[in-house]
């Protein structure tokens, strides 16, 4: 039933062969074909712009006030590409291999190889658009390294790489808007997908300013709506990031792949109190230059700078000498949790570890600068002063952000950090062409499940979003639309549109008529607590079973006691949020169900029942080397489909970073 449509032939030839044989749509026919793109982050904006350039009639939707606000903008550290500009042994194969291994052998080889192949085109494209990547004094592009790799392949623009890439894609999109090839709908939220004779043919969305429902037709629908990390309430996602578009598609038949695969990012600013509305990431690139440690002595209450070198435990360097502070995210997060659970955590809550820049500030940057200036035997103060300048250029905005939030100066004292929910590897199941199992319904970027397996490597999300939008969908969508050239646009008074709109309106009416006592926010917080405690960094059978019961109760309570102010036909952010939280509650249950089903540890999914003697994640390839694709069968009811994963090139081994 699940056909992943992976082309035959040797791995490195698949994409080339596919492109050489895929169906094409001639320019005159492209003008007759309409494509809906939901979401304008890296995947959505790049897809909408590229399809507009090709001549398709595109309608793009985002819930923010401008497509430039999408949360891709917050990505900090960088974007990977196998350019091998550093001559340090990188190649397409290495990027492919690192990604499959980093994902703990739960991703599709063919997709990952394609991603590595097109990574080099992304950098060329972005530079041509005017993305101001960091350069060295010769005027060529600079690179840094990220976790889970031993080469420097990450391109960056200070700590604002996502912003610069998104603005590049946004400008390409606005150019198409100006040319009339794309029509942009800002402050619009998709609330359902319209399916006619088994094919996605449009969407129902709410104009968030007027509250009116709108019907839009498309020969194909692309969901580029990002991840669902906000199911945990606290995450590094933007406040508006939500699962609603993907979830509506799921309830209309699209399978949800590996929902329990969540990435907990090791370096985030810790929670400061109950008022916390979101968490802020400190880029993984900081682990290039920061060393992570806790005191060797349990419950040591001294200030960080008062703890002498020999009383510090650089636990990542101790446990993983080969990769040290640059182990993948899942490994680093669990190691931090292990130390804090064992009583070595720092800060008022004990739920934090130190990320310390002093060593590299002095020894790496300070000394290099002193050498350049010909200063012999510089004292520590000079080294710090010189080193600071370099660190400021590399990470200035991140250090400023840390200081604004915590009131502490990270040039002087180590940052306090703790893991937080950051990214979701799971998402709608898609085939090699990025089509879900619903014909004509595509899913791109973080919203799909495909390329990162059970753990995503740093600087690979930007790569995947842009790969999908710029270089994959423009080819693969033609293979579908070539057979649709005779399909006339379906008027939106078609019964399927009317019926779907009625369902959407009905749900909004129901929500507004509950008139209960508890706010939407309070339900979201409670859901987040259940998810974080029982389906977070560590999971076990008992906890997951409890979580499912608790979430079902929470759902009942929500639908009988939620309080939403205002009315329907006006701007009503609380109503928008209520719809999203209702979907998160349902998703949360599925995540727990998926985590319960997967009785192995892999990547970010850590089942306490399945670990090695050293406490590392232990996979069970004999039983779980598959993508879990869940089919919605009605309220709290799903059927599991399995897509078996085969590894012909990157043979699964116990992942080791020691």
């Amino acid at each position, binding site marked *: 039933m699940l056909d992943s449509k992976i082309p035959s032939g040797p791995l490195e030839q698949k994409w080339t062969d596919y492109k050489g044989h895929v169906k094409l749509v001639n320019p005159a026919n492209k003008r007759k074909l309409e494509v809906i793109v939901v979401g304008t982050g890296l995947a959505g904006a*790049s897809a909408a712009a590229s399809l507009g*350039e090709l001549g398709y009639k595109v309608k793009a939707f985002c819930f*923010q*006030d*401008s*497509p430039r*606000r*999408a*949360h891709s*903008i*917050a990505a900090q550290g960088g974007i990977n590409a196998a350019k091998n*500009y550093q001559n340090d042994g990188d190649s397409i194969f290495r990027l492919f291999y690192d990604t499959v291994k980093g994902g703990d052998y739960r991703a599709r080889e063919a997709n990952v190889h394609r991603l590595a192949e097109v990574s080099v085109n992304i950098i*060329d494209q*972005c*530079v*041509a*658009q*005017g993305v*101001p*990547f*960091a*350069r060295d004094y010769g*005027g*060529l*592009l600079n690179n840094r390294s990220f976790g889970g790799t031993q080469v420097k392949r990450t391109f960056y*623009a*200070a700590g*604002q790489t996502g*912003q*610069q890439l998104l*603005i590049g894609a*946004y*400008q390409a999109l*606005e*150019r198409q*808007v100006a040319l009339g090839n794309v029509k942009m709908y800002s402050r619009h939220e998709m609330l359902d997908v319209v399916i006619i004779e088994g094919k996605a043919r449009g969407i129902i969305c709410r104009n968030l*300013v007027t509250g009116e429902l709108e019907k839009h037709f498309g020969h194909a629908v692309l969901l580029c709506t990002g991840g669902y990390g906000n199911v945990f309430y606290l995450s590094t996602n*933007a*406040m508006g990031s939500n699962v609603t578009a993907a979830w509506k598609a799921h309830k209309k038949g699209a399978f949800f792949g590996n929902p329990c695969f969540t990435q907990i990012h090791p370096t985030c600013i810790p929670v400061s*109190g109950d*008022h*916390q*509305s979101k968490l*802020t*990431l400190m880029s993984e690139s900081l682990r290039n230059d920061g060393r992570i440690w806790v005191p060797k002595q349990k419950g040591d209450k001294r200030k960080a700078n008062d703890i002498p070198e020999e009383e510090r435990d650089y636990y990542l360097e101790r446990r993983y000498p080969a990769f040290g502070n640059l182990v993948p995210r899942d490994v680093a997060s669990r190691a931090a949790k292990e130390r804090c659970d064992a009583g070595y955590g720092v800060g008022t809550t004990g739920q934090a570890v130190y990320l310390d820049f002093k060593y590299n500030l002095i020894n790496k940057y300070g000394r290099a600068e002193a050498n350049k200036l010909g200063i012999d035997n510089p004292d520590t103060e000079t080294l710090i002063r010189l080193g600071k300048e370099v660190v400021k250029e590399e990470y200035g905005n991140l250090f400023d*952000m840390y200081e*604004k*939030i915590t*009131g*502490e100066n990270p040039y002087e004292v180590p940052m306090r950090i703790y893991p937080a929910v950051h990214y979701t590897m799971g998402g709608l199941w898609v085939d090699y062409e990025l089509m879900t199992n619903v014909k004509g319904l595509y899913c791109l970027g973080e919203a799909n499940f495909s390329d990162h397996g059970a753990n995503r490597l740093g600087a690979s999300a930007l790569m995947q979003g842009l790969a999908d939008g*710029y*270089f994959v969908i423009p080819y693969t969508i033609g293979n579908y639309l070539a057979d649709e050239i005779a399909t006339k646009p379906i008027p939106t008074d078609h019964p399927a549109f009317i019926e779907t709109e009625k369902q959407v309106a009905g749900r909004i009416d129901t929500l507004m008529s509950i008139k209960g006592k508890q*706010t939407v926010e*309070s339900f979201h917080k409670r859901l987040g607590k259940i998810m974080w405690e029982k389906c977070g960094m560590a999971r076990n059978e008992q906890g997951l079973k409890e979580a499912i019961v608790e979430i079902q109760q929470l759902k009942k309570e929500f639908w009988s006691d939620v*309080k939403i*102010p*205002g009315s329907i036909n*006006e*701007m009503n*952010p609380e109503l928008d949020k209520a719809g999203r939280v209702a979907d998160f509650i349902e998703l949360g249950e599925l995540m727990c169900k998926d985590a319960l089903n997967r009785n192995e540890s892999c990547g970010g999914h850590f089942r306490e029942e399945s670990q090695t003697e050293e406490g590392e994640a232990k996979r069970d390839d004999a039983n779980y080397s598959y993508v879990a694709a869940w089919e919605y069968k009605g309220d709290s009811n799903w059927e599991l489909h399995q897509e078996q994963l085969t590894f012909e090139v990157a043979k699964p081994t116990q992942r080791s970073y020691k």
Partner: protein
Amino acid sequence: MEQYSMNLTLKVWRQKNSAERGSFETYPVKNISSEMSFLEMIDVLNEELIRDGKDPIAFDHDCREGICGMCSMYINGRPHGPWQNNTVCQLHMRAYKDGDTIVIEPWRANAFPVIKDLMVDRSSFDRIIQAGGYISVNTGSPVDANAIPVEKDMADAAFAAAACIGCGACVAACKNSSAMLFLSAKVTHLALLPQGHPERRTRAMNMVAQMDKEGFGACTNTGACEAVCPKGISIENIARLNREYMMAGLASDK
């Protein structure tokens, strides 16, 4: 830093929609922690309003990390509040003390009509970008990224201009509601890179024309924009825009 708790008085602009007139409402807020962000303080107030059956305050916000550019509050007469180089989402309550009164308004400019309460329509910024704020290159096979070296200083300066988040604080701070800082940042970003050279003249002309059409005012070089810009965008960019515009208007290569 020691955490403390405070009681405050908020005077907030309330306006049902773009058609109706707005006015200030006064709200006391209690037990606000100095560790909260400013928007978390508004969250607390909104939760209370909802529980009391009142309409919560509508405001734009999304990333809460100072990068998406969506948040936009005019606080005690200053866009984004008292801190330098800062967005309101990154403003924290340790900027205030017990007993303070805080006045909160939306961005005020003809080209930014109020949608509701503190939320304004900034689509005019998108239309300025549509007028030329891009490099006309289709997705495809451009030259290798390292084929055209870019002087590091130029690349750094282009990046500094490209750091603009499009929030509109510059417009809100300007007595003429001019969008020159926003526009000049984009023109500078693209003019300093070799990739942006082919279109630099039409870009400057067309973007300025669109800015005028949207109803933004003229620039009189007071520098209020630079002083409040959360990303520290310099008014040197405005000087560069003026040069670009003059060159575009005066010179002809043909």
